[in-house]
């Protein structure tokens, strides 16, 4: 089936099995390998992307869900001023350990900064609650996002 959508600010068209996992479309058909597969069941958040502005897990979405929509992956977000700010803050606070979950954390953090951005630990914890880190790095992640909130304002 032919579908079209916007991927990181570019209009794209693709002829694809409508049931193909959106994660696989992003990785295989567009070669964007920043989006990771963790659990493959929507529970870990490593595959988080923005779909029409909202963070969602691409491993349990299908190609058809992208049709006519606007998608940002971690690669697109990393080019935005707030994305760059977050990357700097993650870097400075040494928030990243193995890094596998981080594309997802970056997308969820970006969404929080765009839509709220208050330096509020409870809100930040909630915003990132769909992303799981198995290296146990949450405190520093929260600190990074708090720092980004301060710097953004």
């Amino acid at each position, binding site marked *: *089936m032919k579908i079209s959508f916007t991927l990181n600010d570019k209009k794209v068209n693709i002829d694809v099995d*409508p*049931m193909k*996992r959106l994660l696989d479309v992003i990785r295989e058909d567009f070669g964007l390998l920043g989006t990771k597969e963790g659990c*493959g*069941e*929507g*529970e870990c*958040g490593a595959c*988080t992307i923005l*779909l029409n502005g*909202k*963070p*969602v*897990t691409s*491993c*349990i*979405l*299908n190609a*058809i*869900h992208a*049709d*006519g929509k606007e998608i940002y992956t971690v690669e697109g977000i990393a080019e935005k001023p707030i994305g760059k700010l977050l990357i700097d803050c993650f870097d400075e606070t040494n928030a990243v350990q193995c890094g596998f979950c981080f594309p997802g954390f970056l997308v*969820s953090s970006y969404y929080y900064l765009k839509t709220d951005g208050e330096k509020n630990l409870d809100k930040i914890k*909630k*915003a990132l*609650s*769909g*992303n*799981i880190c198995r290296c146990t790095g949450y405190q520093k992640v929260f600190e990074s996002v708090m720092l980004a909130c301060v710097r953004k304002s």
Partner: protein
Amino acid sequence: MKFIRPKDVENLLENLEEDKSKKYFLAGGTDLNVQIKNGIIRDANIIYINHLSELSGISEENNIILIGATTSIMDILDSDLIKRHLPYFQRSLESFASPLLQNTATIGGNIANGSPTADVIPLLLVLDAKVELSSKSQSRLIYIKDFFNGYKQNVMKSNEIITHIIIDKNAEKDFLTFYEKVGSRRTLTISKVTLAGMKKVSGQRISQIRLAVGSLNEFPRRLFKVEDYITDKTLTEIDFSRVENLLGKEITPITDLRSDKEYRYHVCVNLIRSFLNQ
């Protein structure tokens, strides 16, 4: 495997009328895709419905709130209309999965998938919600308490689809409410035991009570026997061993990877006690 993307609801219902083969509706996909991944569903006929705007959104009509079947959990959490009339329902849904899943999972999907652990259903049960089932020739309303008839089984016919969930605007008015989802962590948890409760108290007497449980039966259900026993009693008149005895007749907890049946039973007893003492 067939993949169908109907152009509108009318076209969808015509399709259901003509093609009686087993099929799955794809809305948010959060349950369906996990079942496909795990091989529970294979070579399925899929009907995509997430693009049908007639099935999505929250509106009011006289004394009722209508929630379209493909409305996402996040849209319910963000809705001013729901906040005004059904704040308990809205607040309780915050523990649904995670924000990432709330953005895609739909209320109709949670019902149609019919998991014993489905977060939406115990709430709809105490709110006495109705499900609108539509086919080409008619729409019918069925109370959510009458919707399920077995593990992941329901009364929907092969030519029907859930179009709306209907809740009375005053469903929460004058009720004291309770909602507890017991899990291993706060977000991204599958319920071990869920109790939803609503009660009206006049003086010391509980004049009306509704209790619904999740994860304790083959599908979430109301505790009618316990409710009947408690109704019109004061706290001191309630013999709790009687409540436990009746509860034992209404729930059939199992031992699985999340919990064991004894734990589930005792937690349920304690949750009912907490709600009554509240």
